[in-house]
């Protein structure tokens, strides 16, 4: 009698486990901030700048794409993640934008304070940047702050990433505008 009861319990366990395996899971999507087709905006060598240290806010130092859902609430997306750390993506995107080679005369240092979207489709970028190098004149604008917000053209995370890339490129243009040879 006891043996018969143990056989029933084992069968139930196997059925439970099997049912768990057959549960449908949501697929995680990965996004790339930089665009391989991005063309450098720098016209010549004197107008380019090497990207130095890029620091990002601690809440962005994760693979989750952060979405603002309220005035003070952020939601890290579990199924939508960055394919690489955000500082690496920003660095790559700015480098391709500024066209800075290793021997570029100028160097840009960028600090990303905010870069996220929101559930209502608004994407925001706030950053601090600074320029140093041979052609940078201290009396001119050698540092600045950038703050911009764009609506994403459509719903979804892909449009959100595109809008964030567009904002970074706007930041790149702002930095380039500070280079003397690019004016």
């Amino acid at each position, binding site marked *: 009698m006891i043996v018969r009861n143990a056989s029933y319990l084992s069968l139930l366990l196997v059925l439970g486990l099997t049912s*768990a395996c057959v*549960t449908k*899971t*949501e697929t995680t999507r990965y996004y790339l901030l930089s665009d391989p087709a991005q063309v450098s905006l720098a016209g010549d060598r004197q107008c380019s700048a090497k990207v130095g240290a890029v620091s990002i806010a601690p809440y962005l*130092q*994760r*693979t*989750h794409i952060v*979405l603002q*859902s309220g005035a003070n609430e952020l*939601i890290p*997306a*579990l*199924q*939508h993640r960055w394919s*690489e*750390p955000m500082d*690496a993506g920003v660095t790559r995107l700015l480098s391709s934008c500024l066209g800075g080679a290793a021997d570029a005369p100028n160097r840009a240092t960028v600090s990303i304070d905010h870069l996220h*979207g*929101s*559930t*209502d*489709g*608004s*994407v925001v970028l706030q950053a601090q940047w600074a320029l140093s190098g041979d052609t940078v004149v201290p009396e001119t604008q050698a540092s600045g702050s*950038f*703050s*911009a*917000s*764009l*609506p*994403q*053209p*459509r*719903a*979804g*995370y892909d*449009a*959100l990433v595109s*809008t964030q890339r567009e904002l970074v490129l*706007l930041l790149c243009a702002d930095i380039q505008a500070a280079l003397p040879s690019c004016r």
Partner: protein
Amino acid sequence: MTDKLDNGPKQSPQESERQVYVARVRSNRRISPVWIVPIAALFIGAWTLVQSYISQGPQLRVQFSTAEGLVAGETKVKTLDVEIGVVERVELADDFTSITALIRLDPKAAELLTEDAQFWVVRPQIGSQGISGLSTILSGSYIQLSPGDGKTGARSFRGLDVVPVTAPSTPGLPLQLIADSAGSVNVGSPILYNGYRVGRIEEISLDTDNGQTRYSAFIDAPYDDLVTTTTRFWNASGVSVSVDVGGFDLRTESLEALLTGGVAFGVPEGYSRGQPVQDMQPFLLYDDIGDLTENPHVNATEYVLMFQSSIRGLSEGAPVDYRGLRVGTVLSVGSQPWESLWRSGSADNSATSAVANALPVVVHLEPGWLGDDTLAASQGFSAALNQAVEDGLRASLAIGNLLTGSLYVSLDFHDDATPDSIARVDGELHMPTVASGLEELEEKVAGFLSKLQQLPIEDTLNNASSALAEAKGTLTDSRSTLAALTTILESPGTNDLPDSLVATLSDARSVLQSFGGEASLQGELVETLRQLKQVLSDADSVLQTYEKQPNAFVFPIRQTTDPVPEAGVSGESQ
């Protein structure tokens, strides 16, 4: 007979009287003409005698200690090198201790025989004063007469045994100099003023009463005006040599004083010129200029100080100070009859025995140290001192030199002194004394030595010896260790060590270069760190998942659908 008388030559009146007389002889009263001759001779002789007596000079008697060089009938008597007489006879005195020369002088020289006239025999002499009387070697000795200023008529004199240094009639000032010892001053020694000879020593005598030497000195005019009441005389004989930090100081008044001795005089610095002095004024003759400098004062008051403590270190001539200002000099130290020395041995502990136990110190308090060396100042100083003693002034012994232990007498006020005053004891002025700080110092030293004696010096020394022995052992070990180190350092392997170090550093440089910015290793490390960071980030997500659903390892994760951002409202803001 009558005719012969009538026809004869013209006769003198005497002959005429004789003739008349003869005529009376004829009347039986006639004296024979034969008597004319003896009578005439008698007259002539008498006349000769009278003339001879009248024409001869005075005869005088001069007593000498010896008749050396005197010859009767030959020895002349001279004055100013002019013969004025001759020695007629030399005879022994009645007591046979001297001789008497009978001298006949020329009548014209009688006026020279004054009461103070001096006679001496001039003989050849060689002495400290030089050579004199050489002319008498051939001519023989003679007697020199030096007339004086006294009354004439003297006929008996005492001849001088030595030639007088100064003639009696020489103008000048005779003085007396008194010294404690004869020193090197002799008869004839010069008296110098600023090195210039102005007088001489005439005579030296010993005062047997007090053992002092008295010199008869003479200052020639017009230099006698230089001698005043403030003049001080000092022995200028020989050479004075002093040695100090400045070197040698050699002094002598003159070459003559150096050879024969001499006396110098002057007025001490700071003194007035003083008043003229009279003949035979006594002066103190200082031993030397240093003695004069130390104690040039004359007017002083003598006091006796009775000290209970030891007076060892206190010597004659030590100063008497009042708060560092010298006011006197120690005259004698501890001089007292030996019978009174041990009186305290049998005495009781009363105050009388304490006084008897004390040793006397005689001091001179001299106001001259304060700039006024007069008798009036000395008297006033004594009066003021009496009052000061009643107000608490006491004498005490003080250390003058710690190295030599010399003491001096210190006068100062003591508030805790018992009332007392200057007392006259047996004609001496006794000033009260107090114990000095020497006794307190002795007690402190004795206490210190007692404590020192109680210290465990022996144990300490033993411990120190043990420590030293251990230290010695340690040093020996250290020496061995150093020897071993030396051996190691001198070994060939040690010598090759620098080359090995160089090679090792070169290798280390190569290794570090592989970590440089251009090296692939650095890139690999950065990539590895990046991956590690990514892994940690993923792990964080996993941990968050299992934090929310601990059974997610077995059961399916409850998926929550991410919110989907909507399309934004058109409108850029920057």
